[in-house]
């Protein structure tokens, strides 16, 4: 191999590396070379040190470790030769970042070099300082740098300004030092220095409000500078495709933006200038567009005149129509920011925005989607949702989730009719079902539940959708729930809003069974399907016996499912109360199902003990209110218990309240009745009996029983307790469910037994003054 590799030139090394055909070969070459370099460093050859370091730096650029070169950098920096210093500083910038311990050691060298007075050297030192200066270094050397800001050499001044910018970023407290020179630096003609100064001022203003105030006074000066730049003719040094120094223009505009934000006076000074820049810039090339974009951003941020804002929006509109996609992207981003404050102005460009939805470019379509969603309002909602749904069908999967949620949200806020809302939700679910948020199903069920007139319609639609496709989980869940609730409407056959759909019971059951068996269904979905089956079994007129058997089988499955997915149980059983449906209903169902599976006599149905006592009660009741009849106590057999339980359908949001009624008062014990008429079931009345005790003694063994006329059905649920503590303690409540199919006037008799003040009390009375709303 090459013997004198210690003097291998960098070029040759690069050549060798490029000739390596594989990664392994390349590594070999580099390792060999590194070994030579290390040996050379150990030997301490000062003449060729810089060459070795250059090679090492190259190797570092390729990604190989080069930390052993750090000390060499220091040595090279300290050397008086310029070539050495150059390489040394370069190495320092690459190898000695802040995390290395040797970092601080270069501080002294830099200090010496800064005060040397040789431009190139000073330049190097400043460069390194600005690239890798740590906070401490900055603090130490700040005064040095400040002195250099006023040096006669433009080269040094420029570098010094850049270093100052870095220092401010690292150690903001140095802003005091750098504040005063700025004013003078603004008078520079050299664009490089000017650019650096503007950046410096921007950094200062961003970090300290005091600086901000100080520099506001300079707004006129800045305006003047910008104006000069804009109106100067072609200047060879600074022109980029016809625009003179767009970088400087952009930077000044950005600074003006910061200065004019929330400040009337400065904004006014800028108005003319901004208008001038906006209208005079040549937009045929990108450079011009860049300046125009920055102008628009500035107009949007400061307190500009209304005319100017309109101008800005129009410029953005023009951008949108441009064929260059970069410009369109930029326009969409800015319009998104504007839409909050100037909504109506942006609305004018809505058609173009919608066009952009169809772009094949991912970045553009995402922006267009966000903007379109922001532009939806009550007047254009139908058209927009139409477009968005078209987009949903064809958009890439990562955007689908956002799009679906966006559509659902917009539909919720602006839906003109309930039916349209249900339609839209349904369409979203069928198209992008797997990507919707979890609560979409819940909101759909709530929506359908609340729109009573649309029950038949929705169940029909959902059934047909389900029959086509059982793979989309949210859709399946919603559909099975709906079928469960309104299955009877489905089977009735006629409904004006869709074509007549003859559905047989077997079809419905078969479909639900398919859902259950399908391996694509989540446990939650199976839960829904089972619930639906159970509910349906009570409503269908078909063969009861076979349904009961099926029900038992299902219940066994339910059992095993629950054992397998016990953690899901809470979730499934909980979901239903979300919509204010009978959560207890499902619990009781589950209990009942289990009992059915065991095919044993029902365990104490809560109402059973009441039933027997009621019979006692009624023996006593043969007085004038004679027809206190046998309210059919709940049959202890499971099947019919289910029927009764399940026949009490669910209650959507509360109706107009019926006034409470105080029915009994004795020695501090008070009994109140409160009435609820769930609107979904006109024949049901829920009465809550509340017993409160304001006396000094507890009321114990409290039992309340009720009786109603023959045509009513009464169910007493278990009371919350049998003791009403004294002195206004926790009241006791008990729920009475009364079914009144004939809508006859309600009559209610109550019997109370309790112990109070050591005495046993028994009271029987009829409740008078029952409000009319309770039964009508």
């Amino acid at each position: 191999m090459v013997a004198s590799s210690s003097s291998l030139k960098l070029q040759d090394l690069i050549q060798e590396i490029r000739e390596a055909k594989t990664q392994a070969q390349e590594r070999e070459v580099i390792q060999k070379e590194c070994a030579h370099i290390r040996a050379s460093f150990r030997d301490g050859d000062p003449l060729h040190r810089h060459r070795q370091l250059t090679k090492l730096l190259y190797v570092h650029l390729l990604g190989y470790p080069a930390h052993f070169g750090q000390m060499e950098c220091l040595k090279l920096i300290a050397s008086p030769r310029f070539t050495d210093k150059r390489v040394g500083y370069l190495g320092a910038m690459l190898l000695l970042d802040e995390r290395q311990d040797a970092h601080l050691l270069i501080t002294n060298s830099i200090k010496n070099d800064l005060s040397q007075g040789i431009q190139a050297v000073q330049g190097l030192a400043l460069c390194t300082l600005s690239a890798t200066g740590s906070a401490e270094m900055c603090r130490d050397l700040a005064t040095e740098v400040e002195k250099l800001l006023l040096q006669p050499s433009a080269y040094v001044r420029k570098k010094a300004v850049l270093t100052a910018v870095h220092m401010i970023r690292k150690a903001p407290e140095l802003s005091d030092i750098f504040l005063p020179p700025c004013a003078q630096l603004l008078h520079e003609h050299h664009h490089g220095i000017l650019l650096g100064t503007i950046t410096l001022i921007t950094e200062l203003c961003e970090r300290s409000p005091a600086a901000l105030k100080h520099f506001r006074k300079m707004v006129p000066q800045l305006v003047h500078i910008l104006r000069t730049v804009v109106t100067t003719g072609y200047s060879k040094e600074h022109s980029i495709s016809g625009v003179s120094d767009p970088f400087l223009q952009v930077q000044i505009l950005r600074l003006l933006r910061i200065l004019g934000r929330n400040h009337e006076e400065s904004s006014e000074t800028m108005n003319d200038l901004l208008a001038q820049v906006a209208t005079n810039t040549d937009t045929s090339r990108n450079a011009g567009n860049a300046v125009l974009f920055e102008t628009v951003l500035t107009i949007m941020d400061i307190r500009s005149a209304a005319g100017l804002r309109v101008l800005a929006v129009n410029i953005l509109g023009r951008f949108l129509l441009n064929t260059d996609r970069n410009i369109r992207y930029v326009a969409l981003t800015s319009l998104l920011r504007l839409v909050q404050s100037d909504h109506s102005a942006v609305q004018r460009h809505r058609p173009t925005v919608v066009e952009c939805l169809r772009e094949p470019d991912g970045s553009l379509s995402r922006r267009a989607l966000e903007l379109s969603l922001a532009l939806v309002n009550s007047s254009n909602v139908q058209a927009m949702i139409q477009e968005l749904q078209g987009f949903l069908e064809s958009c890439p999967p990562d955007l689908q989730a956002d799009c679906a949620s966006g559509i659902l949200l917009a539909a919720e806020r602006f839906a003109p009719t309930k039916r349209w809302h249900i339609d839209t939700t349904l369409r979203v679910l069928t198209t992008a079902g797997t990507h919707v948020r979890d609560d979409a199903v819940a909101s759909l069920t709530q929506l359908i539940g609340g729109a009573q007139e649309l029950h038949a319609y929705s169940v029909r639609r959902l059934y047909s959708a389900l029959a086509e496709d059982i793979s989309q989980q949210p859709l399946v869940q919603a559909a099975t729930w709906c079928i469960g609730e309104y299955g009877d409407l489905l089977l009735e056959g006629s409904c004006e809003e869709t074509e007549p759909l003859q559905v047989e019971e077997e079809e419905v059951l078969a479909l639900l069974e398919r859902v259950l068996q399908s391996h694509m269904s989540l446990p939650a979905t199976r839960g829904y399907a089972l619930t639906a089956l159970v509910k349906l079994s009570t409503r269908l007129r078909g063969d009861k016996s076979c349904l009961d058997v099926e029900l038992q089988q299902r219940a066994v499955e339910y059992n095993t499912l629950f054992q397998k997915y016990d953690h899901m149980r809470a979730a499934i059983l909980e979901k239903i109360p979300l919509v204010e449906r009978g959560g207890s209903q499902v619990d009781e169902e589950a209990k009942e199902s289990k009992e059915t599976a065991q095919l044993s006599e029902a365990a104490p149905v809560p109402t059973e003990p009441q039933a027997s006592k009621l019979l006692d009660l009624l023996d006593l009741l043969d007085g004038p209110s004679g027809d206190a009849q046998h309210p059919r106590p709940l049959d202890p057999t499971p099947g019919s218990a289910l029927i009764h339980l399940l026949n009490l359908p669910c209650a959507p949001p509360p109706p107009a309240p019926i006034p409470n009624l105080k029915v009994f008062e004795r020695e501090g014990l008070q009994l109140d009745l409160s009435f609820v008429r769930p609107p979904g079931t006109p024949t049901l009345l829920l009465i809550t009996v509340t017993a409160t005790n304001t006396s000094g003694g507890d009321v114990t063994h409290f039992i309340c029983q009720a009786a109603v006329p023959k045509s009513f059905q009464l169910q007493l649920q278990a009371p919350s307790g049998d003791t009403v503590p004294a002195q206004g303690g926790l009241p006791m409540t008990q729920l009475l469910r009364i079914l009144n199919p004939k809508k006859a006037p309600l009559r209610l008799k109550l019997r109370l037994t309790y112990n109070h003040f050591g005495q046993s009390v028994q009271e029987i009375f009829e409740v008078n003054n029952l409000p009319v709303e309770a039964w009508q």
Partner: protein
Amino acid sequence: MIKFFLMVNKQGQTRLSKYYEHVEINKRTLLETEVIKSCLSRSNEQCSFIEYKDFKLIYRQYAALFIVVGVNDTENEMAIYEFIHNFVEVLDDYFSRVSELDVSFFSAVNQVFHSTWQRTG
């Protein structure tokens, strides 16, 4: 604020990389591969600004070389786009008809170049 500046060729080899925030060495290669992947998969029809994690990528293709600049939200994308072109023009002037080879051979010199230019934000 510019986060990084990369020159990567179509085969995925990095010709020049400058990071303005500390990124670990191994993370850098990962970053570069991902970035170049997203740039290579763009067609001519699409715009030059990509949203990547929490910053934006602005890229420009010159023959087989991609120049990619990563910026955060506050930058004017079009100005950076213009800046990339300016940089390439300077290289062109310096090397008279610059090519990828020049970039790989003179990368050390490039570094010095860089520091003077970059601070203009």
